[in-house]
């Protein structure tokens, strides 16, 4: 993931939380809840489910703190737990993976529009994407994760992640051009 300025601040809090300091963990929660919720909301498309996932993710994180390696980014670790929680909540069978012949073909995760798009319209277009494509777009295009990290979080192959992102970009462009739905 791209460098995160809160990481250093987190280190001391994580250390205190690992020692059972719930107050320190509450500060970590306050620091990260917005981003975790944004991630869960975009992946689940449902505010209630997203809130459940956020709650579960933080509870899991608290319980897993002793296993957290201080060298890692707390934010990335937390997001991984959140993504895993979302995937667990979906419960449905895994979607068929889309494979690509050349995994290096769709490396660029960013997406720049020719003309500015309204935020609301863009969020609606993302929401309308198929699950697999949306997951890849949210993690790579919006939250800045590399394909490898995103694929690992989602439990899919790196090539699949790239293909899903490619697919998401095409669908997003198409839907924005025709007014989303």
């Amino acid at each position, binding site marked *: 993931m791209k460098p995160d300025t809160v990481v250093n601040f987190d280190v001391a809090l994580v250390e205190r939380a690992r020692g059972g300091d719930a107050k320190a963990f509450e500060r970590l929660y306050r620091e990260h809840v917005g981003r975790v919720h944004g991630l869960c909301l975009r992946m689940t498309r449902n505010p209630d489910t997203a809130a459940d996932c956020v709650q579960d993710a933080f509870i899991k994180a608290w319980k897993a703190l002793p296993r957290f390696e201080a060298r890692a980014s707390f934010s990335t670790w937390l997001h991984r737990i959140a993504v895993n929680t979302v995937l667990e909540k979906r419960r449905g069978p895994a979607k068929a993976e889309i494979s690509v012949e050349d995994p290096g073909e769709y490396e660029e995760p960013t997406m720049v*529009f020719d003309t500015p798009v309204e935020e609301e319209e863009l969020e609606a277009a993302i929401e309308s994407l198929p699950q697999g494509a949306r997951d890849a777009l949210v993690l790579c295009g919006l939250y800045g994760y590399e394909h490898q990290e995103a694929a690992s979080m989602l439990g899919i192959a790196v090539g699949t992640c790239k293909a899903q992102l490619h697919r998401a970009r095409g669908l997003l462009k198409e839907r924005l051009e025709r007014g989303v739905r």
Partner: protein
Amino acid sequence: MTTRRVKDLAELPRDIPPARDLWPAIAEAIRADLAMKAVPDSRRRVGWWPAVGLAASVALVAVGVFIGKNFKQDQDQALAAIHTAAPDNDAGMIKASLRQAEYEKQRDQLWTEVQAKLNTMPPAEREKVGASLATLKKSIKDIEDALGRDPANALLQELLVNSSQEEMRVLTTVRDSGRQEL
């Protein structure tokens, strides 16, 4: 209603605060988790209490056997001080009450007198009684320490009261043992 326009997907806000504060539910789960983690400690302590009691008992028996059954009247006064300071009908106040000045004053006075008494004993006897008293004192200290970690523990409170009463009884007996012999 129009919203902000963006030119790049990455310009969308990453942070979206939840509509309600989710922390209370998380905090509740954390409290439950901490309570669960505390259970094994409590269980370990359950196994530890009898050991403390046994240590105190061993010390008391050792001192008692050595001294014999030489009880004096003012021993009852010392015990009365404990009962006054530690009402049986309010377990939560027992530990605090035991530390009241009157009790501590009497106990400290007894220890001083017992120390003086020990100095008059033959070395072998002095060593034996001194070691037993030290064990007793340490046992009470251990109980107090355990209560510091678990202040509401009724079993420990009761153990402290009983041990403190025994301490006073034994100290009085040791102090007066010479008078009996005389």
